[in-house]
């Protein structure tokens, strides 16, 4: 797909050198894993080398929605006649791939969808058949792109679909797709979200994962293979199963507390996994109490109880722990925990009571 020549830069000096090589004017663009960069001041036009120096200085280190800019893309500036939008994503309701094309590019597509939904031409593609060139042409016609953009847009959209499917992307988005005053269709900016589940057939995706912005806690949890999402509160959460972990976060909020994290340790709850989870939570300075919420399915209550006790011996825990243990052989599990209960290790019979106790302890 036709794109503008450009170079990556990690420092102001590198940015200046890139601009000198490319020749001004250039664009200085923050490279972060989030949208809305322009609004946050992360995309600037630089007419001169002095401008490049100034913008690169301001943008490098800038915080955009929690993502600190560590690199900028220096790109030859383009003359723009018109701006379009194009994307492919999976429509979970239709269970087909959804292509969206709009004459109104350069702004967030959500805004267009709300204010002028008719300006978006949609196409649903059956994954088994793929996208044919004729269907693509009808789609571009439906979007009412001008004649001079027609062939260029069709060619780019066919390639975009190929990139989307062969790359196992959750989303490929070109915004804006531009028409230059000379009548060329050109990709000016793009966003790609890859499906983490497809890594087994895309070995090279590991290097993209390394550029993810994660907070320290998320990095530590990720290294231990734990499903962790950092939140802002004071009650650390450990639960088995994504649904139960989400539910635990909800219940803590419902009783007036604030969860420090979402953490799913999976179906089992052996000492190794539990110790790893406790370590991650314990290293979070905001955590004032820990709520361990386990429902034994296949895993029996006594295994869970022994796992927790062993993990507590291995990790020095600074906050009080509240346990709710239910499900298979819960009575046996609770009997094992009973003699070990103290101010540092409490047990409650229900999820709601355990949440209340943990929230009280955190306050």
């Amino acid at each position, binding site marked *: 797909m036709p794109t503008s020549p450009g170079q990556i830069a990690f420092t102001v000096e590198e940015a200046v050198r890139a601009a000198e090589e490319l020749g001004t004017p250039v664009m200085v663009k923050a490279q972060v894993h989030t949208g809305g960069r322009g609004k946050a001041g992360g995309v600037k036009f630089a007419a001169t080398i002095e401008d490049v120096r100034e913008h690169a200085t301001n943008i490098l280190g800038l915080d955009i929605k929690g993502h600190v800019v560590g690199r900028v893309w220096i790109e030859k500036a383009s003359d723009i006649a018109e701006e379009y939008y194009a994307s492919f994503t*999976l429509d*979970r*309701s239709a*269970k*087909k*791939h959804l292509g969206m094309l709009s004459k109104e590019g350069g702004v967030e597509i*959500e805004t267009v969808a709300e204010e002028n939904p008719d300006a978006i031409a949609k196409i649903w593609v*059956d*994954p*088994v058949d793929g996208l044919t060139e004729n269907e693509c042409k009808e789609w571009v016609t439906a979007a009412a792109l001008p004649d001079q953009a027609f062939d260029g847009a069709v060619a780019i959209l066919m390639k975009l679909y190929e990139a989307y*499917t062969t790359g*196992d992307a*959750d989303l490929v988005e070109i915004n804006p797709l531009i028409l230059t005053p000379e009548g060329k269709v050109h990709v000016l900016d793009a966003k790609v979200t890859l*499906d*983490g*589940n*497809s890594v*087994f*057939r895309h070995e090279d995706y590991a290097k993209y994962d390394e550029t993810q912005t994660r907070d320290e806690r998320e990095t530590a949890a990720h290294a231990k293979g734990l*499903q962790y*999402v950092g*939140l802002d509160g004071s009650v650390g959460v450990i*639960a*088995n*199963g*994504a*649904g*139960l*972990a*989400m*539910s635990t*976060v*909800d*219940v803590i*909020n*419902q009783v007036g507390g604030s*969860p420090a994290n*979402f953490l*799913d340790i999976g*179906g089992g709850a052996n000492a190794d996994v539990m110790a790893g989870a406790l370590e991650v939570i314990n290293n979070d300075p905001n955590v004032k109490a820990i709520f361990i919420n386990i*429902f*034994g*399915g*296949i895993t029996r209550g006594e295994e869970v109880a022994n796992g927790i006790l062993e993990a507590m011996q291995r990790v020095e825990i600074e906050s009080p722990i509240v346990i709710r243990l*239910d*499900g*298979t052989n819960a009575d046996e599990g609770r009997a094992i925990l009973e003699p070990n209960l103290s101010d540092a290790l409490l047990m409650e019979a*229900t*999820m*709601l009571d355990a949440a209340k106790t943990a929230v009280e302890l955190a306050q």
Partner: protein
Amino acid sequence: MSIFVDETTKVIYQGLTGSQGSYYGRLNREYGTKVVAGTHPKKAGTDVDGVPIYANVAEAVQATGATASCIFIPAAGVRGAVMEAAEGGVTFIVAVTEGVPAHDEAHFYNQLKRDFPDVQLLGPNCPGIISPGKCNIGITAGHIAKAGGPVGIVSRSGTLTYQALYELKQKDIGVTTCVGIGGDPVPGTSFIDCLEAFEADPETKAIMMIGEIGGSAEEEAAEYIKDHVTKPVSSYIAGVTAPPGKKMGHAGAIVSGGKGTAQAKMEALEAAGVRVGNNPTEAGELMAEIVATL
């Protein structure tokens, strides 16, 4: 009566020779499920705990008359395994495996709809299906469920499914069938498929539906309930307080662009006459109230 499976259902386990497959295959068999065969391309003629292994699903079907298959093989092979099962002649497929790429799921979903419209796929990334006392295919702990009725359960989350079964058992309420549809973006079986089957099942008198953030399956289910379900429904949606843009464990559990929030789902369900609890316990209590009035 149960939906999708019953005590006569014969099941093939694709991946029975693997560690997960042999473990859960044995548990399912001990529960009473008719585990009649396993498959492995290179181990035909051998057996696992006395269960014969065939080279593929077609041969296993021919030899045993099985109508269902349960897939316990790694994510990379699931697309091939699902199609092998359908081509082999089974009509009900349970794919337990998690981590299947979304594009694969979309592909085999559409291929099944076109070439094998009578095949019902459950999953991937699901705990399976249990009709207590009759049949248990997948990874649900059988003893946490009380057999009988009058409640049918459908859920997107594994542990919350167990939680629901357990809450009902504590209240001495039985379950006709509990279906875990899984937390992935393109589930083979939807809430609506299950609601339709429960509505048609005379022994199911009430339905419990457990959803979570992400997508619009719960909103679509709410529309369906309004128009087609006469039986009382209670519900719980996990992830009320989930931060936007973050995947909460399940690949499908993400609030994006303001869509897929728990709040919107709860409102849609309430508008359809569903009684919605704020946590799993409350949803169980609501169901107990419903059952008391039946």
